[in-house]
C-alpha cells in the first residue's frame, strides 16, 4: 500500500488546489509522511466519493459561503461586498473536489419590505480541517464593526488560538506572541492596514495573513462580509486564487 503511494510514474504539475490532488501529490512526493497520515488522507478522499452525486463527472461547483449582503444603508464603506454573493467569477471561492453544495443561511435578497437592520458585518469562519465528506466546516457570525477581529472571534466562541488557547500560552491581544494568525480570504479591504507589529510578526508569512489582535474590522457603521480562515498553519485545503 505504501509502495502504491510512492509511485512516481506521472510527474504532472501538482494540482494541490483540490484535496484529491493534494492527496496524490503528497503520496507521490513525500517520503516523510507516515503510513498513518497517508491512510488518513486516502480515507478523506474516499469520503468524498461516498457523498458524490451521480453527476460526479461535472466540474466541482463553487460553494456560496455567505448569503446575500444586507441592504446597504445610505453611507456604505465597502462596495466590494456585493461581488461575493452575486456569482461573479472573480470572487474567491473554496473549490473542493466533488463537494456537496452547502446551503447558506436563508437569504431573501428581493425583500422590498425588509426591516432596517443595524449595520453589521457578516463573517464566515472556516475551520482548518474539512468535514469528513470534504465540505468546509464553516461557522457564521454577525458583529458590529469597529472592533478588533480577535474580540469578535472570542465573543463568538470561535477557535482562534488553537493549541495556544491555554491561559498563559498567548499574549491576550498584546501583539507579542503571534499566535492569533488568521488568513483573510475575502473582505480584507475592510480591515485596518497592517501596523508595524503585524508586519514584523508576519514577515515570512503569506500576504493575506493577519494578526487578529491587531486588525480592526472597519468602523461601527460598516457593513460587509468577510471570510476568515482560522488557524491557517494547520489547514489542509488550499484556497483557489
Amino acid at each position, binding site marked *: *500500500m505504501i509502495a*502504491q*503511494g510512492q*509511485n512516481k510514474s*506521472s510527474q504532472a504539475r501538482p494540482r494541490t488546489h483540490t484535496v484529491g490532488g493534494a*492527496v*496524490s501529490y503528497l*503520496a*507521490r512526493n513525500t517520503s516523510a509522511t507516515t503510513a498513518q497520515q497517508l*491512510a*488518513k488522507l*486516502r*480515507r478523506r*478522499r*474516499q*469520503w468524498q*466519493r*461516498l*457523498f*458524490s452525486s*451521480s453527476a*460526479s463527472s461535472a466540474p466541482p461547483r463553487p460553494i456560496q459561503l*455567505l*448569503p*446575500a449582503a*444586507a441592504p446597504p444603508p445610505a453611507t456604505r464603506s465597502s462596495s466590494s461586498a456585493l461581488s461575493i454573493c452575486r456569482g461573479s467569477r472573480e470572487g474567491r471561492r473554496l473549490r473542493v473536489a466533488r463537494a*456537496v453544495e452547502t446551503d447558506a*443561511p*436563508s*437569504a*431573501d435578497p428581493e425583500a422590498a419590505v*425588509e426591516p432596517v*437592520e443595524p449595520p453589521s458585518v*457578516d463573517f464566515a469562519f472556516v475551520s482548518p480541517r474539512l*468535514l*469528513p*465528506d470534504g*465540505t468546509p*466546516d*464553516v*461557522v*457564521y*457570525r*454577525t458583529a458590529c464593526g469597529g472592533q478588533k477581529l480577535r474580540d469578535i472571534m472570542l465573543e*463568538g*466562541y470561535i477557535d482562534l488560538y488553537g493549541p495556544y488557547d491555554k491561559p498563559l500560552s498567548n499574549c491576550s491581544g498584546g501583539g507579542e506572541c503571534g499566535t492569533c494568525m488568521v488568513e483573510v480570504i475575502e473582505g480584507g479591504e475592510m480591515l485596518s492596514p497592517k501596523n508595524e507589529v503585524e508586519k514584523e510578526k508576519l514577515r515570512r508569512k503569506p500576504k493575506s495573513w493577519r494578526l487578529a489582535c491587531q486588525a480592526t474590522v472597519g468602523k461601527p457603521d460598516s457593513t460587509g462580509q468577510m471570510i476568515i480562515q482560522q488557524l491557517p498553519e494547520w489547514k489542509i485545503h488550499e484556497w483557489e486564487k
Partner: protein
Amino acid sequence: MAAASFLPLHLPASPRLATIARAASGVVPAAVQTSQLEEAFGRKGLKFGTDATGAPTAELSVRNGSSLQVRLNDGLVTSYRPKVYWKDELSYREVLHTVAGADAVKGGVGLVLNDASSSSTSLLAGSEWSVTDADSDSYDAVQVELGCSAGKGGTLEVSYVVTLYELSMATAVIVKNNGSKPVELTSAVLSHIRFDKRRGTAVEGFQGCPYCSHPPPASGFALLTPAEAMKREESGWFGGGGEEPRQGAWTVEENLYTVLKKKVSRVYAAPPEERKKRIYNTAPSKFTTIDQYSGLGFRLIKMGFEDMYLSSPGGMYEKFGDDYFLCTGPASILVPVVVGPGEEWRGAQVIEHDNL
C-alpha cells in the same frame, strides 16, 4: 494505481444481486439468509452472521482490529469497538451502550426517521431493510449499504450507509422522495455512548451555543422514551447546579465543559426564530465526549443535520446496566426537513477518535 481503491458507491445492480437482496428480506430462514448474503456481499472485513437473538447481523472489521456490528433488519449498530490506547496498552474498547431487551437489543447507534406532518409516526416502521451494496478497500475501510422503501406506499427510498474506518465510524442516511408530494421529515441519528462513571462524564464543544429542553424523537431502539427523558429528576442534596430550563425556553451554554451528571434532555442548535433571519449564528458541527475515568474522548461530527440532541439519564441509568451512558447525536427535529418530489436529502454522523 495511485488512486484510492474505493469503488463508486452506486454500482449497477446485477439482477442476481438484486434478487438475492429481495429474497433475503422475505421469510427465509436465518441460516440460509446469512449464507446468501455472504455469497453476494461477503468480502475481506465484512462477515454476515446472526446475533444472540437470531437476528441477522453484519460484522465489519478493519486491519487495525477495530470492528463494528450492525443489525440488518433495522440498521441498528449494536457494537463499535475501535482500537484505542488505554492504560498504557493497545486494547479494544466498546464505545456504544446496548441493553439486551426482551426480544431485541436496544441502544447502540440507530436512525430515527419520523413523519413530521402526521403526529410523528415513524416512517421506517414496518419497512424491511435489505443489504443493497458493500464495499471495502481490504485494509482500512469497509462499508455496507442498507436500503428500504418507507412512507405511505413506499414512496421514500431510504439508504443507510454504515462505514468503518481505522479511526472512525460513519453512518449516513440518504432519503429520496419518489412520490409526487413533498414529505416533511424529522430525523436523527441517536448514539448511546458508554462512560465509566456518572461523575466523570462531560462533553466539550458547546460553549456559546444556545440550547433548550426538548424530548428526543420517538424511536424503537432508544433506551429512554421521550416521556422518560423529559421527566425531571429530584435534585440531590447539593442541588446539582442550575435548574434545567423549561421546554421551549432557550439559554446559552456558558461552560466550556458541559458536565452531565444530572438528567438532561437538550437540543443544541440555533433557535428556529433565528434561522429566519438573513444571517444567524450557526451552531458548532462537532463536539467531543470526555470520560474522566477512562481518559478517552470521542468526537461526534454532524453533517446535513441542523441540531444536536444530547441527553443523559441521570439517576435512571441504573435501570439499563452498570455503565453510565449518553444518548446523543445529530438531529433535525426543531424544524422539519421538507423533501420535495424527486428531491434527495442526505445527512451523516461520524464518530471519530484520536486515542491512539
